């Protein structure tokens, strides 16, 4: 029951808020904050009980839901799902604190904003926890609704168009996945009884062609979500229009559903098709890494820049997943967590900069280091994390992905490594323009971070530094799940070259 209770807590909070008076914004915000903190604490308690030695799903619950269709409500966690939930529930209160006032100017009320946010949190937990494909699909699709309203109702600029673009892309992917799910369901009926259980579905016998087609249905849906080149163009628009807090959840958590889905669904259900498509996916990943980095360098808008850096980072994650080595896999999962925090830091600080300067154009800033030192430092550290400076968390995951890819696909890893030089450029160029140089007109009287903002950013930076030196607590949770996935897909790590002769 633990998992279900934690998953329902945000929804409960949303119900409470819906009963609160609409005019009392402060109370609503406090209730939302309290809820997210409770959820986070509950999740940490649950994580403490997670048994690292056990490989199967933990906190597993399964109830008949629509039994005549074989649909079950079943949830459970492996190490990968657990760390992603932990990241999500940690980011939620930070987003609430950081964006304390960002709902005030929306199209709808503050109350609606926080209800949407909390509903979204329930769905974030649900989508990672679901082990029934039908349940997963419901969460996967339903998540779009709160995000759509959060962008369309509280964003800036071309928010309506961006929200529609986001929705259309996602729906398109969702439909493809839907078709695949239906096919799986039909086949399961022919082979021993209708079911949506992922464990049972992974045992299905199907022809190579069928597997390929069904794989594509899932993969394209996930490749849109985690945007992989060339399906990425919705992301910069969405990130540009969304409020910073929404962007954090969008890029930090929702997009991870894509990469998570590749591991949980694509690899588990279609191991052979995964192998067939690996060469193409790896090429697309490498293109994403380099292309995203070049595009980031070329951006003039800070929010779009961050969005493109994420496209580059998602390339690393996908590459790590399909390299099919323990290092690549664990690295990719750790990358998902680290990217969540480092992008959160970037978006939150960028959001504060933008709200002060009333502009998101990088060229409008200048010399902030001497006007708002704490804000400038926060941005700088977030940037260093994004370019994977050793000692910060992203380095560990990025290096694991590279080294894990190199042992099987050296050339992909070599090209991807050029991304680290480009990363230095896409971070240091905005750092120089916005933070260095003389203080330009319009920036002289900007105020530095206030206490609330400091409280929001401090834990993120602390996590970024701590995980840089001590990634072990997370890696110990991730490793068994990563190893299990690779073994199930029929792979084992390449042996060191000098030992190959001795075998």
């Amino acid at each position, binding site marked *: 029951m633990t998992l279900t209770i934690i998953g329902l807590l945000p929804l409960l909070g949303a119900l409470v808020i819906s009963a609160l008076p609409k005019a009392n914004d402060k109370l609503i915000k406090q209730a939302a904050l309290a809820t997210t903190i409770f959820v986070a604490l509950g999740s940490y308690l649950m994580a403490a009980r997670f048994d690292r030695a056990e490989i199967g799903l933990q906190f597993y619950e399964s109830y008949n839901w629509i039994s005549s269709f074989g649909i079950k409500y079943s949830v459970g966690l492996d190490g990968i799902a657990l760390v992603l939930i932990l990241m999500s529930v940690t980011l939620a209160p930070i987003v609430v604190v950081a964006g304390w006032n960002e709902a005030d100017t929306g199209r709808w009320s503050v109350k609606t904003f926080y209800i949407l946010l909390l509903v979204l949190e329930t769905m974030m937990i649900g989508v990672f926890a679901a082990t029934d494909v039908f349940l997963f699909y419901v969460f996967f699709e339903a998540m779009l609704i709160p995000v759509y309203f959060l962008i369309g109702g509280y964003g800036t600029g071309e928010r309506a168009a961006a929200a529609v673009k986001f929705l259309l892309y996602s729906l398109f992917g969702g439909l493809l996945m839907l078709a695949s799910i239906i096919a799986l369901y039909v086949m399961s009926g022919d082979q021993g009884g209708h079911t949506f259980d992922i464990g049972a579905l992974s045992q299905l016998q199907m022809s190579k062609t069928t597997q390929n087609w069904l794989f594509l249905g899932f993969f394209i849906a996930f490749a849109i979500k985690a945007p992989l080149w060339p399906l990425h163009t919705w992301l910069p628009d969405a990130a540009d229009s969304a409020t910073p807090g929404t962007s954090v959840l969008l890029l930090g958590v929702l997009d991870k559903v894509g990469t998570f889905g590749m591991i949980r669904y694509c690899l588990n259900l279609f191991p052979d098709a995964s192998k067939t498509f690996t060469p193409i996916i790896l090429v697309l990943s490498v293109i994403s890494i380099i292309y995203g980095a070049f595009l980031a360098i070329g951006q003039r808008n800070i929010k779009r820049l961050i969005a493109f850096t994420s496209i580059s980072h998602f390339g690393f994650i996908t590459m790590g997943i399909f390299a099919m080595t323990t290092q690549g896999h664990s690295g990719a999962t750790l990358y998902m967590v680290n990217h969540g925090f480092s992008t959160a830091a970037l978006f939150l600080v960028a959001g504060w900069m933008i709200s002060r300067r009333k502009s998101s154009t990088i060229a409008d800033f200048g010399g902030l280091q001497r006007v708002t030192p704490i804000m400038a430092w926060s941005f700088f550290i977030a940037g260093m994390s994004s370019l994977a400076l050793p*000692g910060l968390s992203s380095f560990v995951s990025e290096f694991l992905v590279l080294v*894990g890819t190199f042992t099987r696909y050296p050339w992909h890893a070599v090209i991807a490594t050029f991304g680290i030089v480009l990363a230095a450029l896409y971070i240091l*160029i905005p750092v120089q323009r916005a933070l260095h140089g*003389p203080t330009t007109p319009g920036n002289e009287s900007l105020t530095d971070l206030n206490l609330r903002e400091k409280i929001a950013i401090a834990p993120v930076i602390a996590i970024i530094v701590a995980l840089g030196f001590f990634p072990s607590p997370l890696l110990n949770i991730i490793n068994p799940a990563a190893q299990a996935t690779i073994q199930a897909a029929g792979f084992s790590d390449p042996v060191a070259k000098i030992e190959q002769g001795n075998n």
Partner: protein
Amino acid sequence: MIGYLIGLPLLGATLLLLGGRRTDKWGHLLATALSASSFALGAKLFFEMLARPTEERAISQKLFTWIHVGGFQVDAGLLLDQLSICFVLLITGVGTLIHIYSISYMSHDHDRRRFFAYLNLFIAAMLLLVLGDSYLNLYVGWEGVGLASYLLIGFWNQKPTYATAAKKAFVMNRIGDMGLSFAIMISFATLGAVSFKDVAERAPAASNAALTAMGIMLLVAATGKSAQFPLQAWLGDAMAGPTPVSALIHAATMVTAGVYLITRSNFIFDLAPDAQLAVAVVGAITLLFGALVGTAKDDIKKALAASTMSQIGYMILGAGLGPVGYAFAIMHLLTHGFFKAGMFLGAGSVMHGMNDEVNMRKYGALRAAMPITAITFGLGYLAIIGIPPFAGFYSKDKLIEVALNAGGVKGLLLGGAALIGAGITAFYMTRVVVLTFTGKARWDHEAHPHESPALMWIPMALLAVGSVASGYLFTRGDALVNWLTPVVAHHHTEHHEELYSPLTISVVALSLVAIGVLTAIFKYRGDVSNTAPENVSIFTRIARRDLLQDAVNEAVFMRPGQALTETLVKVDKSAIDGTVRAVGLSALGSAQGLRKLQSGYVRSYAAVILAGVVSLLLVIWVVTQ
């Protein structure tokens, strides 16, 4: 215990950065004290090491498990051996002197505390670089010093050119870092290990191709950090940093990290002769490159920077000559640490007395106004040009000797380059001394040159002592060579044949030095214009422009890169987004449908999602019937 070496300065950096302005009053003192404590601890560890028998000298310490995934296991571990202790003493010793110097040098700067925080950060990162027991730990220090260097070059980044210089250094260093990444990946894929101990043990079993590839990648890393050809272009611009930084980071310590990396990786290079030769060649090219640039610079710091590049070229050359060269490369690194840091501090002292003027054409006759600076700088000068018995004589002549004795065409070319380099060094260093300290005063009206305060000249004087005595001490009874032998020469023990006697080489080298010195004196002793003459040869013009390094980089990398970026931005907007839109439209049937969707009826989108779920249920129902 080893961990505290790094921990103390790291603590200082953390306290000063998090403490902010509250620590302004005493921050510089704390940072200096912590750096000094680290030095004291290093000295203690050194004497303890000295007391142990040779085979027990190296000690290691595991701090915690850092990354462990499958076969990839990296501990946060430290290794203190005969090689790393040399660096520990150099880094903390020179580092502390420069902290002391900076108390006075930076006393008028509003952000002095931040400066000291960065200095402490640098010391910690540099110590990690030389103490890490694996390539991945080294990497953390390697980029850590890069970060400190970036922050310090851009310390006055309110000036756009300084901010650009900082960025340039970081980016060019990252190109080198990529080499280090590759080397680690090759090491793991081939040997299944990344720690020095395991790599050394397993390397003999690896293929020559893998070892050569790894060696070349380590060389790439070294060229970035040590400003060697072809990644040298950032060092001159790095002089934007405050002068103590130039002395510590961009002369004595950080830029020598490449020499450390190659020496540390001797077990790779000794098995990969092609990679080793590449190291020597890069060193030889750079020593001449730097020396030539040095002849044309009027900015005292840039002249010294060119000299640093050239002197590190000597070290890299030495490290590329294998077991016979490593110890001398390290010896030159240490003596260079004394004399070059001393001369940079001297340059800082001159700037301090001359309103931050860096143009040597506006100096002249400063000997009288700044006697201590002149003497300490002069001792460093005698050391760098290799006059016996000053430090550089011992270390540089040994390098030339080893290069020539490599034999054959290789020996002649490498040794010849080193000899010619010695002559050019004598020329450009004499030029610096003559222009700065002798001749007629060419000062601006506002200049009132004066000697620097004791906090500044005492470190200069101590470094000058090192410039005088260190070479003799290191070579007495082959002290340093014997000390380092267990680390760098475990594969080979054969004695090298002597093709040329040390005496012959010293005579030739000193003759070339004499020619260089006399030419410079003859050329610059008389009237010197206080502006750079325009009617100079094409060679001088090219040398002034650093042998066109920036022009080449811009033409080959920067402008094509910018063009590519612009093209991709356009392609992304038109082609990719456009295609996806078109596909989306056709999928939806008609543009009409899209407009309707975009018209703002939000509920209809929710309906679409709902329709998805409903259709799924519907299908299920149909199927299960």
